[in-house]
């Protein structure tokens, strides 16, 4: 996570720095690892209560009717505590864990008593959120722009649906009888197919530094669209495929009703977050950070920039592919147009707006293109115009995105409180 705050440096290139020892006594920004403080029971109790309130309040209501004000207040207070308590202390860590648990509990409990339409929205949020999580790995952590998430979403969808239907397909005159696999088995296949394809196109593009991957993936997106649209024998072209929801059971629970299917999407979202979190905290994450910081130096120290970057791209694409399998079931009808470049642009801008290189960013970004977009549907498509404008302004004013801005805000507040 990009919590680090860059402190103005007092470098003296000529070595004129008085004793060559920074004056630590007078500096507020030193990292006090030694003393991480003691846990405060009252703080923990307060935060737990807030968290419980946030998670439980919407349960059993159609919307947030009646509690919306109180709910927002609780969320704000929880965010406020997050801002106020320094992250490096034991208390800070605990507050963060409780907040994360609150988010998980909220997402788990939310469906109770909600309408099907609401849950369709949230299901889409979970699935697209997973795509944005993957994209954030490629872009935020591996530092490469991929413009193919929608194409991989499409490849994942079609792979899953075709293997699930198990019908005869014809490509370039060759007829193949596809096996009829259970839906669950098609998800890992979709992931693997997308990872392999991304390695295939990423390998040449990452030979040289520069925005080449962006160009190649954009070209790839168009090629994928052309194939989906034109290979009638394989994809039924622009007519699309009506996806039959069947045979999806986990532990004997039928996952097909909208409410249950939401949990499948939610699980996949958590899975994606876990994968990215795992990579970021492993030595690979350190290598990725080093590459972003100074790729030339990293490479001179034995960090294989190309392989690590390729990995970030491949995992990101794979996550999009798996999300594609779920997406097809969620919307029950797939057609090439859903996977065109404009969908990619949505994912891309969501990634950027949420905040690159953070774990919370993709969740914010994912909600921007699903929940918030749905809420703004009344504007026609004007919200898309604003979205484009918003991203441009943000790049100039706060290039770290919403989550990054939040981190900066927290750092600013804590500095104030400190002094």
């Amino acid at each position, binding site marked *: 996570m990009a919590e*680090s705050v*860059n*402190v103005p*440096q*007092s*470098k*003296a*290139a*000529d*070595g*004129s*720095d008085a*004793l*060559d*020892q*920074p004056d630590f006594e007078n500096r507020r*920004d*030193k*990292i006090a*690892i030694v003393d991480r403080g003691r846990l405060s029971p009252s703080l923990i109790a307060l935060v737990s209560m807030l968290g419980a309130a946030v998670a439980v309040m919407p349960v059993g209501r159609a919307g947030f009717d009646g509690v919306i004000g109180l709910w927002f207040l609780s969320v704000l207070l929880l965010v406020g505590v997050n801002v106020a308590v320094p992250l490096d202390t034991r208390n800070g860590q605990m507050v963060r864990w409780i907040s994360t648990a609150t988010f998980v509990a909220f997402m788990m409990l939310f469906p109770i008593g909600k309408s099907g339409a609401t849950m369709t929205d949230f299901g889409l949020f979970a699935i697209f959120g997973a795509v944005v999580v993957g994209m954030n790995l490629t872009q935020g952590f591996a530092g490469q722009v991929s413009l193919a998430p929608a194409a991989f979403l499409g490849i994942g969808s079609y792979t899953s649906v075709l293997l699930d239907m198990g019908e005869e397909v014809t490509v370039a005159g060759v007829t193949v009888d596809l096996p009829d696999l259970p839906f669950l088995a098609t998800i890992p296949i979709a992931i693997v197919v997308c990872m392999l394809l991304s390695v295939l196109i990423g390998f040449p593009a990452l030979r040289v530094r520069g925005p080449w991957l962006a160009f190649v993936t954009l070209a790839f997106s168009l090629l994928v669209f052309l194939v989906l649209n034109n290979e009638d024998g394989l994809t039924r072209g622009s007519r699309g495929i009506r996806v039959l929801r069947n045979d999806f059971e986990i532990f004997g629970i039928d996952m097909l009703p909208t409410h249950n299917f939401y949990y499948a999407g939610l699980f996949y979202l958590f899975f994606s977050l876990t994968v990215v979190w*795992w*990579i970021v*905290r*492993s*030595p*690979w*994450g*350190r*290598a990725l*950070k*080093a590459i972003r*910081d*100074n790729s*030339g*130096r*990293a*490479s*001179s*120290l*034995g*960090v*294989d*920039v190309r*392989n690590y970057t390729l990995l970030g791209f491949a995992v990101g694409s794979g996550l999009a592919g798996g999300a594609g399998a779920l997406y097809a079931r969620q919307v029950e009808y797939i057609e090439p147009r859903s996977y065109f470049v404009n969908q990619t642009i949505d994912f891309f801008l969501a990634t950027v707006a949420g905040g690159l290189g953070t774990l919370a960013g993709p969740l914010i970004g994912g909600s921007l293109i699903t929940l918030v977009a749905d809420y703004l549907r009344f504007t026609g498509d004007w919200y898309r115009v604003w979205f484009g404008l918003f991203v441009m302004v943000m790049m100039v004013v706060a290039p770290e995105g919403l989550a990054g801005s939040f981190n900066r805000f927290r750092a600013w507040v804590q500095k104030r409180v400190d002094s």
Partner: protein
Amino acid sequence: MTKTVDNEPVVRVRNISKRFGGNQAVDDVSFDVTKGEILGVIGPNGCGKSTLFNCLLGQYRPDNGSIELDGIDVSDWSPPRRAKHGLARTFQLLQIFETMSVRDNLKTAAQEHIGSAARRLFMRPDMGLDGEVDDLIERFRMAHLADELAGNLSYGQQKLLDTAMALVSKPAVAFLDEPAGGVNLTMLADVEQQIRDLNVHDGATMVIVEHNMEFIFALAHRIVVMAEGRVLMEGTPDEVRNDPRVVEVYLGGH
């Protein structure tokens, strides 16, 4: 001080040339690096020392010539591959990871030498490097700074960290580009002491480009003098000091 050197060459540099447009930056340079020695490379500004380093470590592709490590020709290898096989370096301009802590900087420098890529994904973040890294931090007298962001260090400390990063993986040969450049006098003796220490106690082999004559003459066993891209002469510090050609290069211009 004792200067003991085996006679076994680790790195063999043969006929390296590099041209930029009309400018012959490096012209047919050859030398050997013997195990356990400190080899100094000196020469006036713009004589091609840094370009030579970039050719040897893979940042540039030389027009001509080869570099062998332990008898293996590594001329076609990528920089990370060379690094993994024991050719470490620093750059003339300071190159550290400013948004990472001192400890993480050193771990980054050490981690690629351990385990396979796949295993690294499932290792704990510290990778069992903590002991080794803390040891080096201790020796470089930066223990109080271990968790400080590298960007917050003073220039001299950053320079020292940069050097430590090249040495933490115990490379076969470390190429140091001006380790004393821009370091103030208080710190200079320290840098010199660390480098000598690593050489004498750990047997670290180093090739050092340096402008500070006093510094390099005190440290090096052998010195290569470059001028206008060529090797002008090669010899012990005393031989170099007393050679009229060297004086001419430094004083007489071209």
